[in-house]
């Protein structure tokens, strides 16, 4: 078994193209999560409209290609949705975002973004 077949074109596309890896100056929710083992750390902010629909996402990430690309994919899926969807998403949803087989240790990288989203708290005003 080799374990690098997950560096697919698709994964690397999401790594190199991260439209939501940006700073939101105006946001409503903020959350953060890290993976001490590999040093991944993702901080995510959300901007919502008056109906709690996600209008925009901005995150900073400095970990590996896996954590960043999965955060990028997740962002794409969340735009325009109600924030309540975040409660419903679980690890297996994240793992199935693209069809690659991650090793258990790299699954932890893939789900850092989701954990940051699960840690979201309303921005203090």
């Amino acid at each position, binding site marked *: 078994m080799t374990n*690098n077949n997950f560096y697919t074109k698709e994964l690397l596309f999401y790594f190199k193209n991260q439209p939501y890896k940006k700073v939101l100056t105006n946001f409503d929710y903020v959350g953060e999560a890290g993976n001490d083992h*590999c040093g991944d750390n993702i901080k995510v902010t959300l901007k919502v409209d008056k109906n709690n629909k996600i209008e925009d996402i901005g995150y900073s990430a400095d970990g*590996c290609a896996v954590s960043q690309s999965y955060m990028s994919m997740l962002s794409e899926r969340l735009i325009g949705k109600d924030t309540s969807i975040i409660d419903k998403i679980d690890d297996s949803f994240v793992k199935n975002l693209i069809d690659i087989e991650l090793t258990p240790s790299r699954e932890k990288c893939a789900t850092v973004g989701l954990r940051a989203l699960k840690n979201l708290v309303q921005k203090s005003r």
Partner: protein
Amino acid sequence: MIDKNIKKQFKIFQQKVYGKPLRYLDNAATTQMPNDVLNEIFEYETKYRANVKRGNHYLSEKSTEIYENARKTVADFIGTNIPDELIFTSGATDSLNLIARAWGDKNISEGDIILVSEIEHHSNFIPWFELAKRKNAKLEIIKVDNDCNFLLNDLDIDFSKLKLVAFTHVSNVLGVVNNVKNIVKSIKKKCEPFDVTPRFVLDGAQSVSHFGVNVKSLGVDFLAFSGHKMCAPFGIGGLYINRDIFDEIGEYKYGGGMIDSVFLDKCKYNSKVTNRLEAGTPNVSGAVGLAAACKFLNNIGLDNIFDHEKELASIMMNKLRKINETIIYGPVDVKHKSGLITFNIGGIPPHDLATILDTEGVAIRSGHHCVMPWHMEQDLKTTARASLYLYNDEEDIDALISGIQKAKKIFKVN
């Protein structure tokens, strides 16, 4: 010169990973065990295994003798001919925690200063951080420059309050070999006007196995190290304590073997430091393995190991630097370094680089290497680290370099 066939003495190198020869470049984390060491442990376990210092039957007496002989061998290896100055612990982390408890709790009081460098492994940082917190003492930090030089002249502290200085012999991130004697001398000099002499703790986890360390010539009071980083098993390590400060040592763990007498209302602890600090049944087979490793390393010759690592480090440095995207952390000149290089390849996160190298059979480390404060100060999240040992060869380095080329292709760098 080290025997070109030395890898044959390590069974682990007979295997392939993902069908490729194992290229083990994570020696700063853990080294491999030679067959000699494994055989000695097997011999002990199958011929002499029994509890030490307790029974008076044949095996127990044999076992005690072997354990104390191991202490002699290990003490000798780090340069003391006083076996009682060598405490067996479970490793460097345990040794450092031992000092913080057995010495720290007894000697540090409110307002005292503990000094550590900013490049310490968490194991040589958190015990002092917590000790300072327990005692309302102050933890002060020695800054280092890009080449790992300690900026001692920038220290703006009250030296009259300085009680303890803890720093590493070799940085596990930058690989730089610190000039211990000079550091100790210049700190002592700053304390002189106040007539105080701080105690010095040296973290030898990355040094004792890579070049000859003579603790008596370094002027430190404590030296901590780990067996698994020097061809010995996990769960065994050592702590040197200078005999001159034995009366400053309290207790660490409580239990069997460390007492003189125990009554329901009072306990008296053994006055012999090796007994008092080694509560409970010790790791005898670990000690046997550690002593066997010391003999193994002595047979090869610490000078030979040092030269071999230096030569390979210089080759590895040159080859890494030929790759345009390489960023090297710490000095590029390997003169004052051990065989360890921390680097990044621009455009490839280190964690991914390590994963791709792994598929080529190349084992390196990525992350913050348990030195988070320094990485934060550098505004760096993580780095990749390749670290050499006596059994590595040029082919290992070539596999590393071609693995990096492969990673560059996958990540479409350049």
